[in-house]
């Protein structure tokens, strides 16, 4: 006979404001099989948990329903509490009367009744729960870090320093990411490359780190502790072991007019190239889309000039497979291109550039050697208009979020411009100035007060070209909405930070969730900021939402700590909510008919065949068998199996059937 305990949480007033918790507890106490039903202000607090524990012992409970928030929030909390009181944790279920009830309905009888229905449903389910034991699987103590920007670099070094193996995968020919493109960094104005490049070299030299550049994730299967990661090493058309990185090929390459990705199209590169002089590894790759040999079938100048004969024109993409216990996503972000702004000319005006392009103009290693010159004619601009929130905080552009970094870098840009062109006038159109970091507000004040940057609070409606000038039409909302027109020589759009290209595809390969802007989603916005909903996959940096450098580095170290924590155990404990093929006594053995269609269904290749033999070793029957180490518990085979021979622990036929009838029958 079931003895179920029901515990109704008020969640302060989060639940009790709209649900009559006392009534729910009272009604639940009369459900068949319920031995005790109580309500309490904060069930997840220590006294609340004790209430559960004491009731388990006092009433010899066979099951517990905690009626509170989402199981995605506190199921582990209460299952642990049950275990501490000697009840198998899998005999505890949560009835979600907060997210799915009190928060989404108005106060009233219907809401209380819904809470009662939800509790009754879970009581019926828990009566059918079975005591389960966790599954233990070994952990491969290698982490794959995807992305070699500052986030990936920081995380990789932290994990490697803790003594674990790291495989870093970078899509571009060099690690370094966006940070390596930046000129100087706010609020200290120290040179970006000066602080980053030593860390890049550390990655390349670290004995625990294997670095794959010009490489992408091909596929990922498996799960936490045992991911199988297949990495595509795109052909560099070069034998890296032979190449010394002398650069003779780059100097002689006849194709010199390819817009450089690193220079944001403001500089040119050759077809065989390293993205920038401090690249790691500092060995070139051939860009086959632009190489004369691959287009026309002849040239091979690089092969001729190469002193070590390292060029390999027929090299193909190759693959490596890595067994990894954890994955760390550090794929970074991108910025919206100026072509996304019809009102600012659809990208057709050369002197309307984005913030990242300005970084290159301001960088001492950039295409203008750090002189601020406008792209169209190389003149030094006398007036620059900076437009903040270009695409950010703009629902009409589909991006209602704040990109967070633009206020600061725009202030920095205006400052750098003023430092380099003393007679120049920088204007900044802004909505609000968000300078909420250490020394950030002071930095902005410096721009305004010392460098006399002209801040105009208002939006820009249009930019157009006339007589070699860019006419910027906007409004000054602090001057009672007065229209403003500025004849500028250059316009810099602080375009919105967006998810990196290919992030959706990568998320789908890894089965991590992402938001509508294609940024990866964290498991919990406050308490699990560096974890994804997929166990064993962690997030660092701007691939989650745009972040500045200090935040990115902090997140990367946080994610690294999570990986190191995971690797501190030899075995991983997993919930046993997996599918099983039901067995029965002889002569039937199992209702499984051996049609093996479930093998086709399973996405994890977790199902194979099992022979049932008699004492003499003769095969009586061949049935399906599910490997508990591989099964992830999706249950697709369960719904497919016609004879209902497969069931899934935690969501078994009896439980879900009981839930349906309990939900509908008062």
């Amino acid at each position, binding site marked *: 006979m079931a003895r179920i305990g029901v515990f109704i949480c008020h969640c302060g007033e989060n639940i009790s404001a709209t649900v009559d918790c006392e009534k729910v507890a009272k009604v639940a106490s009369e459900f068949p099989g319920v031995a005790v039903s109580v309500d309490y202000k904060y069930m997840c607090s220590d006294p609340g948990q004790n209430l559960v524990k004491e009731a388990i012992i006092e009433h010899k409970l066979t099951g517990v329903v905690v009626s509170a928030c989402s199981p995605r929030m506190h199921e582990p909390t209460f299952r642990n509490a049950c275990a501490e009181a000697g009840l198998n944790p899998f005999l505890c279920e949560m009835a979600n009367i907060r997210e799915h009830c009190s928060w989404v309905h108005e106060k009233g009888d219907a809401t209380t009744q819904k809470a009662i229905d939800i509790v009754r449903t879970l009581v019926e389910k828990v009566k059918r729960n079975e005591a389960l034991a966790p599954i233990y699987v070994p952990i491969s103590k290698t982490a794959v870090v995807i992305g070699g920007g500052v986030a990936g670099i920081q995380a990789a070094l932290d994990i490697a320093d803790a003594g674990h193996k790291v495989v870093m995968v970078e899509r571009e020919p060099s690690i370094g990411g966006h940070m390596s493109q930046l000129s100087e960094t706010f609020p200290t104005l120290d040179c970006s490359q000066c602080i980053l490049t030593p860390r890049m070299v550390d990655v390349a030299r670290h004995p625990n780190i294997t670095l794959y550049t010009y490489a992408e994730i091909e596929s990922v299967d498996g799960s936490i502790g045992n991911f199988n990661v297949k990495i595509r090493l795109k052909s560099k058309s070069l034998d890296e072991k032979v190449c010394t990185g002398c650069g003779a090929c780059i100097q002689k390459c006849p194709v010199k007019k390819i817009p450089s990705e690193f220079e944001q199209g403001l500089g040119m590169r050759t077809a065989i190239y390293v993205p920038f002089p401090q690249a790691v590894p500092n060995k070139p790759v051939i860009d086959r889309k632009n190489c004369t040999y691959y287009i026309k079938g002849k040239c091979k100048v690089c092969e001729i000039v190469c002193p070590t004969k390292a060029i390999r024109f027929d090299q193909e993409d190759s693959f490596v497979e890595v067994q990894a216990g954890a994955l760390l996503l550090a794929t970074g972000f991108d910025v919206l291109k100026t072509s996304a702004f019809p009102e600012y000319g659809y990208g057709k005006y050369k002197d309307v550039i984005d913030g990242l392009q300005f970084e290159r103009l301001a960088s001492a290693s950039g295409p203008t050697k750090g002189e601020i010159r406008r792209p169209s004619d190389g003149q030094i601009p006398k007036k620059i208009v900076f437009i903040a929130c270009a695409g950010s905080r703009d629902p009409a552009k589909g991006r209602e979020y704040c990109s967070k970094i633009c206020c600061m870098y725009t202030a920095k840009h205006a400052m750098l411009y003023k430092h380099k062109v003393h007679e120049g006038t920088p204007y900044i159109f802004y909505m609000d100035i968000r300078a909420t970091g250490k020394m950030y507000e002071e930095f902005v004040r410096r721009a305004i007060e010392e460098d006399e940057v002209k801040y105009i609070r208002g939006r820009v409606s249009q930019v157009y070209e006339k007589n070699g000038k860019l006419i910027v039409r906007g409004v000054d909302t602090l001057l009672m909405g007065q229209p403003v027109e500025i004849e500028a020589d250059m316009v810099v759009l602080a375009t919105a930070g967006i998810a990196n290209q290919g992030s959706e595809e990568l998320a789908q390969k890894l089965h991590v969730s992402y938001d509508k802007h294609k940024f990866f989603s964290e498991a919990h916005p406050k308490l699990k900021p560096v974890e994804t909903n997929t166990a064993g996959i962690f997030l660092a940096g701007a691939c989650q939402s745009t972040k500045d450098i200090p935040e990115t580095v902090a997140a990367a170290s946080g994610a690294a700590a999570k990986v190191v924590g995971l690797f501190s155990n030899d075995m991983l404990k997993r919930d046993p909510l997996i599918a099983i093929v039901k067995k*029965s006594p002889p002569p039937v053995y199992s*209702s499984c*008919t*051996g049609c093996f269609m479930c093998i*086709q*269904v399973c996405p994890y290749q977790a199902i194979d065949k099992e022979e049932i033999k008699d004492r003499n070793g003769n095969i009586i029957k061949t049935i399906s068998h599910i490997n508990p180490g591989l099964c992830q518990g999706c249950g697709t085979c369960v719904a497919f199996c016609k*004879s*209902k021979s497969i069931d899934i622990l935690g969501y078994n036929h009896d439980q879900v059937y009981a839930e349906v009838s309990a939900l509908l029958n008062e």
Partner: protein
Amino acid sequence: MNNIQQKTKELLESGACTLIIGYEKGTGGKARPVFVRKAEHAAKLIFDESCDQNIAGYLYRQEIKNESKKAIVANNHTLKSIVELASENQIHEGDFMVLAFTAEGEIIELKSFEEIEKHVATLYHGLNDEDKATMQKIEAMTMEERWGFWENEFSKCIKCYACRASCPMCYCPTCTVEINQPQWIPVPSHTLGNLEWHVMRAMHLAGRCITCGQCAKSCPLDLPIHLLTYKVALDSEQYFDSVAGTSVCANNVLATFKTEDHENFIR
């Protein structure tokens, strides 16, 4: 007709076979299945238009599985069922001999599953005119009329499970109707439970029904329940290009998917 009797007689006499599963003359102008074990009884066997029962289901019966040398006289339905059963791993190549007929009525032995597949490929797969007409009639009805039609039919069902017993694809030793924890299908035969049973039966036959109509032929109440599995079979072909009983190595329509499968109802 002589050639079937001649052929099977030879098989039994030579000892190549010890059991022939075929048809004999029944009552009311119908043929019925017969098991022939002796050469002198081969004369009982017939094969003509009346032999329309699908008898593939005998092949996996435990009692018959143990007989090593057996042959089956297979009509077109039986052949398709053999292919489908083979794809579902219920029967195995070489365990039995298949005697089939050419379009001209010539008896032939199909020596492998591949030969059966090839033979099946030459056969007509669609519905007969009468069934087509009924399907169209039902599909042209309003929703309420369709519900009324089926409610009336299901109300007559007595849950004798003759449909299940006669279908070669219903081979599960423990059928879902026999499970009582939970009780998926109610035991008494009321309209609601009958409806659930027939919906479940049709869904279980998705991508597996070879449209022989044996279920309806066996129904003592003449309910047009074959149309339910036909509907599923037609949809499987229309949307997923899957025709049951045509390939031994085909995957089941519901056990596979394409990312580009196109629906228009999911919001």
